[in-house]
Structure formats: C-alpha cells, structure tokens
C-alpha cells in the first residue's frame, strides 16, 4: 500500500505526463522519417511467406520461375533475386583476417590491443563458418545497404527511446526518494516505526516506476514502429542474414538469433539497464539529498561512460574493457549480442549487467549503512 502511495507521487506531477507526450511526439516524428522503406519491407514479407525462411537454391529457383512467368515488372523481387543469388558467395568471400586488419587500422590500434583484436577474429571466423553451415546468413531479410533499417531501429530509435526513458527514470527516482526531505515531512515520517522502513518502499516504488515508464514508452513507440514498418513474417529470420549487410562487413552474432529473439532480449537488457540506473540514482539521492545535484551528477557520470572509450589508449586492451559500462551498452544496441567494433568478447551484455548489478548491490548496502549513521 505504501509502495502504491510512493508510486503515485511521481505520476501526480504533470511534468511526467508532459514529457511523455513530448517524447512520444518526437519518436513518432523520428519513426516517420524512414517511411520510404515501408513498401520494400512488404515485398520482403511476401517473399518469406511464399518461398520460406531461407533464400536457398530451391527458393531462388522457385522465385526465378515465378518472375519469368509474370509479365509485369516486379523490380523489388527481381532485385532480391539477384542479391539472393550472390549472397552465399558474397558472405563466403569475406576474409575475416582482413576484417580484423581493417578494424585495427580504423580504430588506430597498436600493440596488445591490435593482437587481441586479431585473436578475437579467429573466434569470429569459426562462428562465421558455423553460420554458413546453419545457413543463417541466407535468411530473407530487408536489404541493409541503402535503407539501413537495422541501425535505424536499434541505434537511432532505441537510442532516442532509452535516452528519454533514462531521463524519466532519473527524474522520477530522485523525486520520489527525496520527496519527504523536499516537503519537510521527513522528521515526522522518521519518528514512526513504519516510517523508518519508508526508504525501502521507495526503492521498490522507484523500480516499479522505472519499469512502467520503460514499458509504456517502448510499447507505444515500438508498437507504432512495427505498425508502420511491417516485420511480421521476418520475426523468425536470422538477424545476421547477409541481406542485413549495412556497412563494410556483414553482421556476425555469437549465437544464432532471430529478429524476434533480438527484440525481446534487447528489451529485457534495456529493462535491466533502466533498473540499474534507477538503483544508482536512488543510492545517490540517499547520499546527496538534493534532486538537482543528483541530476547533474548522473548526467556527468553518463558523459564519462560515453566518453571513456575515447579516452583510452589505443594500444592497451583496456580499450575493450572500457565499453563495459551501462551507458556504452545502452547506446550500442545496434550490435546487441553481435561481434563488431570494440565488442570482441562474447556475453558482453550479461557481463555488463552482472558487473554493474553487483556494484549496485554494494553501493546500495553502503548507502544504507551511511544513511543509518546520519542525523536527520
């Protein structure tokens, strides 16, 4: 019951609703900006429905026959036929040692960092040959090169969505946690037996608030996204399909992953991140006791996390460890569970969540001990 009262405190403030509406308008506008890609997705859906999940020889022959029979010009399908014919060869011709070399020169790596990168790509190569055996790279998928819809959804839209969620989480958590102090009722509360436990309820309420903010914003945003861009038949397609080849290299995942799984797992990971951020904000508010300073400090910490990889020496393996922060993970959802860039070790997401989850536990315990010794 107390949790519900705490939960309600943030939602009674109109600013949260104003921000939600503003954010949703902005998301709508961003999603709308790629509307040209929608018809192509329809065509790819049709391909999957007619010819099955995999663009193998059988499917391509059937498609070729169908296109020859038809008089009308189906240029998108013809384009996919041509792309599909070259797909297997194109993927097989990638030399992963060269990819590692290119990565080294693009990131200007040297010394042990360069060696580590080359070592990592031996594993990537193994995984790539496994992908070829499973024919994961041959799944029908929206062609990546011109529209870059994968990056659009998982980098641009996700980046926007979770920046907004993060802002709401920090604001609401610090507001709820500091509510009694701001309204000068803390002494009254702390004089009672139940009131002494209030801070615990506030943590639960903040976590619930963060989860609801995230669920609401992402449900509406992604709901609208998938209504606008139809991925219905592609949900079982492998994300690492060579069709989804946006930049200079194809995508490689550490384990087989379909688009549906990618979506669900990435949202779960984001939920974990938001709860982490909520927890850290809560601990900071307990110690700092000022919503304004908490917000600035959280902003500074996010900036540090964001800039950390750029501050690292390009010759040390610490460069690869410096991306193990919630902020780096939040802004690299475009390569969720994939190998690429500085993410050269598998299980990146689990590691980040585990490391920072345990750090959060320590912080919360420490903050609790600190608060216990404070005079009100």
């Amino acid at each position: 019951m107390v949790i519900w009262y705490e939960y309600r405190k943030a939602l009674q403030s109109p600013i949260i609703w104003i921000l939600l509406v503003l954010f949703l308008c902005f998301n709508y506008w961003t999603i709308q900006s790629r509307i040209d890609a929608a018809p192509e997705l329809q065509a790819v859906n049709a391909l999957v429905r007619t010819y099955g999940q995999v663009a193998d020889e059988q499917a391509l022959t059937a498609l070729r026959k169908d296109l020859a029979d038809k008089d009308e010009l189906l240029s998108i399908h013809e384009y996919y036929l041509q792309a599909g014919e070259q797909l297997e060869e194109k993927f097989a011709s990638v030399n992963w040692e060269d990819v590692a070399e290119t990565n080294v020169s693009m990131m200007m790596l040297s010394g042990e960092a360069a060696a580590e990168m080359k070592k990592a790509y031996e594993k990537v190569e193994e995984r790539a040959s496994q992908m070829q055996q499973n024919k994961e790279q041959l799944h029908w998928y929206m062609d990546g090169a011109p529209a870059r819809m994968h990056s659009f959804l998982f980098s641009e839209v996700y980046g926007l969505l979770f920046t907004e969620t993060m802002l709401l989480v920090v604001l609401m958590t610090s507001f709820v946690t500091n509510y009694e102090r701001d309204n000068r009722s803390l002494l009254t509360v702390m004089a009672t037996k139940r009131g002494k436990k209030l801070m615990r309820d506030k943590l639960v309420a903040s976590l619930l608030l963060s989860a609801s903010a995230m669920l609401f914003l992402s449900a509406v945003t992604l709901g609208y996204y998938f209504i606008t861009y139809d991925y219905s038949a592609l949900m079982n397609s492998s994300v690492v399909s060579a069709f989804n080849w946006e930049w200079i290299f194809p995508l490689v995942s550490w384990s087989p992953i379909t688009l549906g799984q990618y979506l669900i797992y990435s949202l779960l990971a984001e939920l974990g991140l938001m709860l982490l951020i909520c927890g850290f904000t809560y601990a900071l508010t307990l110690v700092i006791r000022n919503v304004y300073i908490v917000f600035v400090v959280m902003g500074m910490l996010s900036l540090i996390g964001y800039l950390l990889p750029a501050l690292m020496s390009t010759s040390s393996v610490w460069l690869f460890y410096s991306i193990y922060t919630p902020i780096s993970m939040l802004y690299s959802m475009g390569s969720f569970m994939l190998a690429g860039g500085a993410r050269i070790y598998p299980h990146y997401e689990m590691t980040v969540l585990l490391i920072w989850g345990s750090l959060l536990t320590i912080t919360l315990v420490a903050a609790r001990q600190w608060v216990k010794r404070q005079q009100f």
Partner: protein
Amino acid sequence: MSLIWIEGKKLLNWRRLILLALLNLILLFPLYEIMDLFPNGRPETDGIRLAQEIKSKYGTIVDEEEFEDFKKSYEERLAAVSTHLSTYEVLVEAGFTDYQSFMSYGGNKDEDIDLANAIDEIREQIFFKERINVFWEAQEQERLISAYERTRNGYIYRPNHSSADLAVRIQEQLQAEGKYEIYPESFFNHFQQYITYVAMMAIINAIIVMLPLYMQDKQNRVEGIQYASRRGRRLFGTKLASGVLSVVFLTLLLVIGSLLLYSFTGNRQFFDIPISSIITGFTWYNITFGQYFVLSYSGVIVLALLFGILTACLSRLVGNYMTLIGLCIPIFFLQNSYGNRFMVESIIDMRQHIWLSPIMYLSLLIGTLLLLVFIWRREGKRNIT
C-alpha cells in the same frame, strides 16, 4: 549591492563550483578533440599551407595580377611534379610525366589495364606512402584556382530560397572587394563546428547555474520570512541580478577558455580575410572572418544570458526540481538540435533567410522578457503558501 554579492555566494557556493568545474572538464574533452582535428588529414593541411602562402604573398584580397602570379606558382609546382614523375621509368616510357595525364589515367575501357594498375600503385606510393607535399598541394591549388575562376566568370552561388534581399545581396557580392573565392573553406567550417559546441556548453552552464536561483529558497522555506518584509518583496530582482552576473561570469570564463583552446589552431592569421573570398563562404554581409568570429561569440553570450533568464523564470514559476528540470530538458534539446543550427552555426549564412536568425533571437528575447515581466509584476502581490 551587498545583497547581490550574498545571493551570488549562495548561488555559486564552493560545492557547485566544484560540480561545474568537473562538468566543464568532461565537456571540454570533446571540444579539445574538435580543436585537435583541425586541419583534418591531407588535403586540408595542404590547403591551410597554401592559404598561408596566399596571405603572406598577396594579402587578404587577391587581385587579377596576383592571381596570375598564383597561377604561375601552380605551374612551378607542376614542373616539380613532372621532375619527380620522371624518376619513374614506367611513366617516362608511357609519356605520362605531366600532372594532368598522370592523375586522370585509368577508368576508361580502352586503356591499358596493366599500365593503369602500375599508375595506381605509383599514386598510392606518392600520396599515401611517401606523402610528398607538392603533389597534395598541386591537387588543392587546382581546386582553389578553379574556384577563383568560377567566381570571376560570374558563377556565384544562388541558394534555394528566393527573396528580394537575395537579389540585392547577389548584386552586392558581385561588387564587393574580395568577391572571388580563393581561400580554402576548412578553417571557416571548422570554426562553425567549434562555436556550435561552445554554444551548447554555454547554454548547459547557464541552465545549471540558474536552476536553483529561486528554487533553493522555496525548498528551504525561507520565502515566508522574505516576503513578509518590504525589501524581501524586491528580492526577486536582486536575485535575478546576481544570477545574471553569475551566468556572465561563467560564460566569460568559458569564452576565455575556448578562445585559449582555439588559439592552438593558429587560425588567428586568417582573421582579416573577407568571408566572401573563402570557398562556399556565403554570408549576408561583407565581413571578415575576424568579425564573424566576434559576431558568433556575441551570439553565444546572448544565448547563454537568455537561457539563463528563462531558467530563472521557470525556477520561480514551478514547485519542485523535478518539474523544473523536466521543463528545461525539452527546451535544451530543442535549442541544441535545432535552434543552435540557425542561431549559431549558420548565423548569417546566405543559405537561410536573412531574417531567420535575427527573428529567432528576437522571439527568444521577447518571449523571455514577457515571461519575466509577468512574473515580476506578480511578485508584489504574490501570496506565499
């Protein structure tokens, strides 16, 4: 007067100063990277070297005679290029020892593929392995000369929009001194990028300083005592003055810091070049790069002040920090992603309408002042609850 000082000390206490110093330290890192990225890579570095050469030899405005001399130096560079190319046997045999044929060979179907590949390799060797200056310079000088000739032939840039002002401006540009483009645009574009980031930092600082201006009194419940006295009712103005002074102080610190950082680029030497003689330097007024520099910095200071006052007004209006910060977030993001593009980055750019950025500044000013006047008049009869 002493109250202004006391309020200022309250606003910028040592804890906040440390916080702001840390924040600015973090924010300065990307600014340092922007500064450090100039000149960015090969043709840009050579362009700057050429610009220095033009500046020292011909001054800020290059007339016909000097341009002929500049072309002569281009010929000299080509001669040096040919001498270097003559050391390659393949090229001598094929007769490709002059710059033009050396650069343009390859790509056509009727050409000898082996020779094209050999020439490709030599280009790779010269440009990227040996990195010979004269080749890069010749490439860049060719571009500068063609820009000069293009503008001399009357091909001046016409933006997409059309208005009476634009026609007048184009006529004016055709009459202006230094109307022919000859200086590389890299330092001008780099400054626009630099100043846009400085504007973002200034606005962040102004907002963060002003956030607690009235809110901290509200949270500490001292308004009741303040508003019971005659002087206390007028405290609104006093606090605003100390807030504005704090913003001015911090913005000036930031401006000085960013100027110091900018001095490492060495672009001060280009300050007296008219913008119209910079390639793609299309501005509404005939001013020099130095004047543009001052104008941009003034714009940043004005923006910091206006956003500071706006935040102060909001700090009085709303009831708690969450609402206050929640209101400042969309304001900041709108300004940073759209406003600054028109108000700072291309403040007098001909590609946007002549009145666009003045109107944006004016409406921001009028909006802020109206809000301020509304709150100020309310102060005298406000109830404290």
